[in-house]
């Protein structure tokens, strides 16, 4: 894989004050590739995910999207973000809008689609995540799993080139995790480029093309799931896996 790079990070460094959260990160994600980022908490994996659409700024290095560097601010950055969908740990559905409006809003305001066309597409996407019947409800009336599926539909509505998932199942009850993972698996099968920060090792094994293991702000391993889970090279990864795979 990785013949046709979509997301490239080159020597990326980020500090929070003294704390060096991302240290010389180099990572390439090819078109259609599913990269799962795992690692202990505080390892910088969420930050890494958020730098790709510049919700977090970086101090040095370059991030390229489709061969072009990320714009600093303003309209150009907004345009780029429209092409990179993001799904958050805490869903972040617009609380004052219905499910349908949540999915349609950016289509009409950013993509300039007509309201009817946007709503039609929204309903198709909601149907795809199994929630067409919930369209008139408000986010607070849905379960966590349902909200997260709406959030995925909202991101897909922009027809993004890539999707970033920042711990999409970490705030969910165990029984709701699978409904979200199933939607993500389907997306992976459909060839969507995805960067997924997660603790779901089952998902990493079954859906990822590559697993990136991060610790202390560095990429420690970057390999296929098969290699990583059966034969981790670094002690750090061995230690991590022994802790999470035991129970």
């Amino acid at each position, binding site marked *: 894989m990785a013949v046709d790079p979509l997301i490239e990070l080159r020597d990326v460094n980020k500090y929070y004050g003294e704390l060096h959260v991302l240290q010389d990160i180099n990572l390439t994600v090819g078109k259609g590739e599913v990269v799962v980022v795992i690692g202990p908490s505080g390892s910088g994996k969420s930050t890494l995910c958020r730098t790709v659409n510049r919700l977090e700024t970086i101090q040095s290095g370059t991030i390229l999207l489709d061969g072009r560097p990320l714009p600093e601010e303003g309209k150009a950055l907004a*345009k780029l973000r429209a092409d990179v969908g993001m799904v958050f740990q805490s869903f*972040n559905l*617009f609380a*004052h809008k219905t499910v349908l409006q949540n999915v349609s809003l950016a289509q009409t305001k950013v993509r300039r689609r007509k309201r009817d066309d946007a709503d039609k597409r929204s309903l198709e996407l909601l149907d795809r995540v199994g929630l067409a019947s919930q369209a008139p409800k408000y986010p607070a009336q849905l379960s966590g799993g349902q909200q997260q599926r709406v959030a995925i539909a909202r991101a897909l509505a922009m027809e993004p080139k890539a999707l970033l998932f920042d711990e999409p199942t970490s705030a969910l009850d165990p029984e709701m995790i699978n409904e979200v993972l199933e939607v993500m698996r389907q997306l992976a099968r459909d060839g969507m480029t995805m960067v997924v920060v997660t603790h779901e090792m089952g998902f990493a094994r079954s859906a990822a093309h590559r697993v990136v293991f991060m610790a202390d702000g560095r990429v420690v391993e970057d390999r296929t799931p098969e290699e990583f889970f059966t034969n981790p090279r670094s002690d750090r990864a061995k230690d991590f896996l022994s802790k999470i795979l035991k129970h």
Partner: protein
Amino acid sequence: MNVLTDNFSTYGEGFLGTVELTVYSSVLALVLGFVMASFRVAPVGSIRVFGTAWVTVLRNTPLTLLFFAVLLGLPRFGLVLPFQVFAILALGCYTSAFICEALRSGINTVPTGQGEAARSLGMTFGQTLGLVVLPQAFRSVIPPVGSTLIALAKNSAIAGAFSVTELLGTYKTLSELGYNIVWTFVWIAVGYLIITLAISALFNVLERKWGIAR
């Protein structure tokens, strides 16, 4: 007791003067407050500094001093306008600082994730603020904005000292005519009550309509 009936037109003029000052200054304060609140959360540093300076200067200047500055200062720079317009400028700008801070506290009640989600969908700063953050902030700022506008209505009395026709100023005319000072002020107070209670009622309606938490 017959102070009111004898001088209904004087009271009426004063009352209307205060209503005009209140309405025009409120509109100015709301617009400027909205702009300044946007400035204070803007991604561009220099714009944020401007918003902060605006609030700091206007909120910390005594209103009477601000009236002097506007009414006596601006004509020196060749800006000559009717005193009523100057009074509206002074009141509106002064109150905008308080409106700005009320709006900003409302913006801060909206979880950061809402703005991040909007930005991640490609919305510009203006769209994020206008479509996602402010509509949610609006619900929680209705009560403090109402209080600020009530304060504005009462602050407008200062304009009377600068020969702008308004409600409190009517006492001068009436006491010269020899009317009982207590009753003169009772009716003035009633006039202010009508205005402030009307503002309260308006904001109660707004709160019932928009203030529901979902």
